[in-house]
């Protein structure tokens, strides 16, 4: 799912969606989960729904985001 391959649509790949999520945090370090989700789906389409969580997982594994459960908010780690 992460590695490029023949049947990967680059526009809805994990890398593409992760990059887009990083862009969203340019205006601030905190965004609610639903804000991020809706902006991603608005731009990438319904196909991105399946990719959204894996994209967040990737950013989490890279140490770029943290999820605050009590306020349902994602924090970008610079």
């Amino acid at each position: 799912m992460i590695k490029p391959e023949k049947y990967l649509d680059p526009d809805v790949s994990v890398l593409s969606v992760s990059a887009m999520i990083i862009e969203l945090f340019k205006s601030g370090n905190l965004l609610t989960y639903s804000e991020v989700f809706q902006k991603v789906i608005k731009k990438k389409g319904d196909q991105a729904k399946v990719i959204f969580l894996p994209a967040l997982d990737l950013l989490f594994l890279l140490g770029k985001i943290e999820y605050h459960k009590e306020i349902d908010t994602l924090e970008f780690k610079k």
Partner: protein
Amino acid sequence: MRYDIHLLEGSTAFEGLVISICHDILGIGAHTFSTGKDGGRDSKFEGTATKYPSTTSPWQGKFIVQAKFTESAVASCSDSAFKNQLKNEELPRIKKLIEINDLDAYIIFTNRKLTAGTHHSLQEWLRGELNVDNVDIHGVEDLCAWLSANKDIVDQFKIDRGAKQIRFYEKDIKDLIITFNKDKTELAKTVENNFDFSDKFLDKQEKNVKNNLSAVYFEHIKSNSLAYFDEINKFLNDPKNSALLELYKQTVVELQHKITISREDFDKFEDILDVLYQYILDKNQSELSSRRALIQVFLHFMYFNCDIGIK
């Protein structure tokens, strides 16, 4: 073209095949095989052959025909077992038949391999033993040549085209086709105007030459299936179909492996596609008969997308 004659259901089916060939080359009067009092199974024909060994000089008189079947794909007339069977079992009986009735011609049909050298030596040996000039033996090579010219016999006996049926795990492609059929949106009736296929066609011309896919068949792919390819691509690219994509990838890897192994058994690549189509359909009649056009479409897609065949 080679045919899997050894996969026929036993010697009775082979005898039926031989009789069908005899009806063509000798005449409709060739009797079906029967077991004589001496225990041997022969077919008899009496008269002037229609076109055996040729139309200009056909054999005539009393014929005895024998059919020697083997389940082995590699058995040969050079094998000592074959000659021993002829020497110990058949010749004594044939000689007795000659004593009772004159014999004018003796023909053996077998699906064993027969080289030119072995043919010559066996023929000369039989002629000497029986004291009959019109003696011949036909191996699998001759049978396949006759079958290539008589497709109705091939169909009658359901002998697979090509030497081997390509068997693979076809359930995945079945599931894919069924899901795609439910999922597909509006299918383009014609190729979309904003998609330029011209450079892809040039690539494919080279691919077609490498794979020996005929120009006529490529036109068939373009007219029959090309309009679906964009939709299939979107279907496979859709992340929600990642599990189905995995099935597709497993299928094409297996198919590519099987095609590579069997390639020499087929002439044109479209023969392979036809064998695959028939195999998938035969295995999934109830589920795919109403969607069988999509079987061809997917196979064409695999080829066009360089998932099968030489790139």
